[in-house]
C-alpha cells in the first residue's frame, strides 16, 4: 500500500526539482512583495515592527495560494490524474502524499525564509523563533485547505481566481491564530494557546481535508 504513495511523492519532488522556477515562485513572491513594504509605508522601524507579523502572515497565505493552482491541474492536463485513481492505495492517502510534497516545496520554504523576513521588518529577536514556529504549524493547514479548493475547481478555466475566492475565507482562522501566536510572544503575553490552536487546526485539517479532496477529485474524474 505504501509503494504507490512513495512513488508519487518521489515523482512530485523530482518534478519540483526539475522546474525550480515554478517551485520557488511562491517564496520569491513572498520575498519580493515583503521588500516592498518598507518602501511603501516608509522605513520607520516602529511602523514596520507593528505591522510586520501581520504582513508576513498575509503574504505567506498569498504565496501558498499562488502555488496551489498547479497542484492537480498539471496531473489533469496530462492524464496522470486517472492513474492516481487506479493506484492500489486509498485516494485519501494519495492526495495526502501530494499535499505533503506541496508543503515541502512551498510552505517549508516560507518557514525557512521567515527569520530573514522578520529581520527585514525589524521585528524583535523573539520573532526569529516564534514566526517560523507559527508558520510551521500554519502553512501545512493552508496547503490542505487550499488543496480542497484546487481539487474542486480542477479543470475549470479561471480556476485560480475562483480557488482564491473559495479558499481565502477559509484561511481566516489560520491567519487570526497565526497572528495572535506571534503577537503573543512579541508582546510578552505568551502565545501558547494560539500555538496549540494552530496545532489543533493542523490535525483537524490533516484528518478531514483528504476526504474532501478525494471526493472532489472523484467528481472531477467523471
Amino acid at each position: 500500500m505504501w509503494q504507490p504513495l512513495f512513488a508519487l511523492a518521489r515523482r512530485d519532488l523530482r518534478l519540483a526539482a526539475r522546474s525550480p522556477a515554478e517551485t520557488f515562485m511562491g517564496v520569491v513572491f513572498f520575498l519580493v512583495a515583503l521588500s516592498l513594504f518598507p518602501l511603501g509605508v516608509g522605513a520607520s522601524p516602529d511602523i514596520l515592527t507593528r505591522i510586520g507579523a501581520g504582513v508576513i502572515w498575509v503574504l505567506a497565505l498569498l504565496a501558498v495560494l499562488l502555488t496551489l493552482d498547479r497542484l492537480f491541474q498539471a496531473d489533469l492536463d496530462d492524464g496522470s490524474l486517472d492513474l492516481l485513481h487506479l493506484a492500489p492505495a486509498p485516494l485519501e492517502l494519495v492526495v495526502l502524499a501530494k499535499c505533503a510534497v506541496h508543503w515541502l516545496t512551498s510552505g517549508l520554504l516560507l518557514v525557512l525564509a521567515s527569520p530573514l523576513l522578520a529581520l527585514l521588518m525589524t521585528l524583535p529577536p523573539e520573532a526569529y523563533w516564534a514566526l517560523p514556529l507559527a508558520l510551521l504549524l500554519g502553512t501545512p493547514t493552508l496547503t490542505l485547505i487550499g488543496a480542497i479548493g484546487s481539487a474542486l475547481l480542477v479543470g475549470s478555466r479561471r480556476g485560480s481566481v475562483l480557488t482564491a475566492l473559495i479558499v481565502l475565507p477559509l484561511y481566516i482562522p489560520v491567519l487570526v491564530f497565526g497572528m495572535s501566536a506571534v503577537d503573543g510572544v512579541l508582546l510578552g503575553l505568551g502565545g501558547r494557546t494560539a500555538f496549540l490552536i494552530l496545532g489543533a487546526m493542523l490535525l483537524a485539517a490533516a484528518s478531514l481535508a483528504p476526504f474532501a479532496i478525494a471526493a472532489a477529485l472523484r467528481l472531477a474524474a467523471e
Partner: protein
Amino acid sequence: MRSAVAAADDGATHERAAAFEADGLACRRGGRLLIEAADWRLGPGDALLLKGANGSGKSSLLRLLAGFLWPAAGSLRHGGLDVFADLPHWRSLLHLIGYQEGLKPSLTVAENLAIVTALLGGSVARCGAGLDRFGLEALADTPARFLSSGQRRRVALARLVAVPRPIWLLDEPATGLDAKNRSRLEELIDAHRQGGGIAVVASHGDVALRSPHVLDLGD
C-alpha cells in the same frame, strides 16, 4: 521470432480474469443517453471490441468500466460480484489507457515508466521488459517532452507489460502507432488473452483482434 520469445516470457506473469459481465448497462452523459442496455459476457481470454462513430460513447463506456462514471442503469459484474460495490479492488485489477498518456514532460521515458509502475503497485524490475517490448530502449533517457505522439503512446502501452493486471481497457490504443508497433500491440493483446486476461478495446478498426465479441454503439 524475438517477440514470440518475449510472449513466452511474459506468459508466466499474466493474471487470469474471472467472468466479466454487463447486464442492461446504460450510460448517460450530459443528459444524453449514450448507451442503453449493453449486455456482454466475457470469460478469461475474451476480447470486446467497441465500435461506433465519434461521440457514440466508446470513451465514456470505457471510463464507466473503470469506475469513473456511474451507470444510469444495469449492472457490471466481475467474478459474480458487482464491481461498483468494491471499486478500489476492481480498479486494482485493471489498466485504462485513455487518449492521454499520463507522461510528465520533464521526466525521462524510463523515469515515467518506473514511476507509473510503482504507482500502480507493480515491480520496477519489470520496466525493462516494458521498454523492450515496444522498442523504447534507445529512448529510455529521453525526456518525454521530446517524444512524438506515437512514441508517447508506446510508453503508455509499456505499462501493460510492466504491471500485470487481468483487465485491460484500451481507448484507441493504436493511435499514432506505425505498422510495426501496431503488430507488437496486437501480439501483446493476444498473449494477454492467452494468459487468461480480458481486453476491452475501443477502436476504429486499426487493431486486429482474434475473434472478438463486438459491441456496436452505432452513431
